[in-house]
């Protein structure tokens, strides 16, 4: 009997208790709200079911007793296996399983423990609980919550990722915008630079065009003067007017023709020096001085002049023949432009520029700028008629002659000198203290 078995079990646990423990246990079991049943033997025949079990199964006791438990339980696949084990091993076990084909699922949980009789297992008591849908719902809710949490996490991660991406994009866009702005600015700069270049080049071109125009104009204008004389005086000769003056007219024609020839010759020399490619190299200035003075020897003698060439002589970066021409023209002028009867005295000397400029500039800078470092300054000084300050700039102009009547010439010599020095990368100038002749100077670079 299952009740007896239970009583026996209780007895073995509390052998010395005077209480009617089996009776109490039975009473507890009868009143317990948990469904319980006791099964016997290996076939698990139900011998006892408490009222809660009968209620769970919705059957009266008579319909439950003597039946196999496996025929009663709705979820039993593993339950029976477990019953076998508890019965065999005597170890209690718990188990829960779903009732098949119930939607939503119903979970049955079982707690089993063995019943001992005469030191052997005779049966098993099963306590059954139908967790019905509650657990499922809880699980579902938990799952949902968990899922939600996971989702939330995922969502947050995704949002973070998106944000990061967006931020990156914004940064990139900002960079792109910045780059665009920079490119725009650079483009504007480039455009402005180009515009400036074009303006400069145009100005240069215009300037050189103007120079060329002025040059051609000067040539045409100045060559026309002797032509006009030739034409006018030959008219007089042809008409036979004023026969007394015929020789004078003829002479004027000849002089004009000669002048024109000289002008054309000098003009060609000037043009050559302006256009010719000048290969600059180290030139011993002494050899230039010697050669130039040698070629001017007759002129010096004729003028009763004295030329003093003061060494030591530097080596300069120049074009030999061009430098000779410069010196020739300057010395020729010095021989020519003297008051009548005064023997020309000429001094040629060279000096090196100071290594550095003086740190303090003079309050009133002299008209003649100091030679720049790395340059040699050459002086050609004379005792001639000098040049008034207001004419010192003019004298280098092509065909310009300050003293047309008193001194012969074409007005090209100094224009050639200036052009030659410019083309050799130098500077030229003149100073002329009143009554002390002229002091022409030019600067040429020292070779490295």
């Amino acid at each position, binding site marked *: 009997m299952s009740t007896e078995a239970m009583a026996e079990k209780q007895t073995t646990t509390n052998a010395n208790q005077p209480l009617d423990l089996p009776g109490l246990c039975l009473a507890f079991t009868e009143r317990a709200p948990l469904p319980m049943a006791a099964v016997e033997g290996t076939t698990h025949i139900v011998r006892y079911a408490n009222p809660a079990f009968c209620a769970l199964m919705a059957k009266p006791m008579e319909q439950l007793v003597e039946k196999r438990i496996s025929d009663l339980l709705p979820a039993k696949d593993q339950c029976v296996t477990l019953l076998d084990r508890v019965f065999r091993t005597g170890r209690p076990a718990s188990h829960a399983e779903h009732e098949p084909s119930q939607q939503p699922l119903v979970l049955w949980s079982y707690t089993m423990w063995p019943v001992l009789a005469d030191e052997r297992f005779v049966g098993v008591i099963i306590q059954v609980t139908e967790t019905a849908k509650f657990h499922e719902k809880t699980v579902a809710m938990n799952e949902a919550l968990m899922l939600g949490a996971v989702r939330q996490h995922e969502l947050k991660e995704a949002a973070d990722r998106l944000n990061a991406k967006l931020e990156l994009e914004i940064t990139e866009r900002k960079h792109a915008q910045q780059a665009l702005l920079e490119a725009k600015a650079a483009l504007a700069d480039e455009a402005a630079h180009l515009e400036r270049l074009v303006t400069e080049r145009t100005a240069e071109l215009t300037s050189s065009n103007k120079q060329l125009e002025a040059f051609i*104009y000067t040539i045409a204008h*100045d060559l026309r003067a002797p*032509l*006009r004389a030739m034409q*006018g005086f030959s008219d007089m000769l042809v008409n036979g*007017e004023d026969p007394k003056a015929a020789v004078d007219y003829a002479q004027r024609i000849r002089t004009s023709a000669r002048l024109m020839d000289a002008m054309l010759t000098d003009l060609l020399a000037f043009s050559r020096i302006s256009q010719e490619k000048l290969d600059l190299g180290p030139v011993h200035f002494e050899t230039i001085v010697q050669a130039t003075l040698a070629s001017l020897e007759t002129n010096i003698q004729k003028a009763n002049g004295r030329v003093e060439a003061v060494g030591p002589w530097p080596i300069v970066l120049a074009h030999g023949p061009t430098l000779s021409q410069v010196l020739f023209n300057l010395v020729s002028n010095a021989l020519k432009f003297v008051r009548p009867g005064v023997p020309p005295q000429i001094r040629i000397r060279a000096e090196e520029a100071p290594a550095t400029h003086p740190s303090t500039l003079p309050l009133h800078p002299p008209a003649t700028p100091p030679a720049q470092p790395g340059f040699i300054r050459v002086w050609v000084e004379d005792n001639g008629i000098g040049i008034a300050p207001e*004419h010192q700039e003019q004298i280098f102009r092509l065909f*310009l002659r300050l003293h*047309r009547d008193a001194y012969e010439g074409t007005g090209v010599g100094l224009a050639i000198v200036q052009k030659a020095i410019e083309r050799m990368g130098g500077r030229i100038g003149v100073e002329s203290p009143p009554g002390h002749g002229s002091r022409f100077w030019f600067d040429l670079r020292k070779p490295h």
Partner: protein
Amino acid sequence: MTDQQTILLVDDSENDLTLMSIAFRRAGLNSPLQVVHNGEEAIAYLAGEGRYTDRNEFPLPAVMLLDLNMPMKDGFDVLDWLRKQSRLKRLSTIVLTASVRPEDVERAFELGAHSYLVKPAALEDLVAMIRCLRDWLKLNHFPPLNEHVKR
């Protein structure tokens, strides 16, 4: 009356001056002629300075024939100086130059020149030009040159 008008000729070319005097003679222009050779001399003459202080010997001209391209001070310098001389504003200034450059024409008039003539290459053309000048001198009414005379 015309014969009393002194003409000041400013030119640095001895040949041109000779040709001018020939042309004056041929054209029958008998006005007294004074000659200076550059701008500096012209200014000295007009200002009555230096060797030109004697107005009996170097009378103020009614007309000046002024070359432009000259050494020292050129024709433009003379025009520029002349503008600032209120005493000399009655002087008729005729530029007579070889220059045909438009800039020079413009600049000369800007500086107050009254006429701009280009030196002809042929003598007969120069004579024809001086003939015109002669006729113009005859027709033109000149004011008294000296303001003291006017008062």
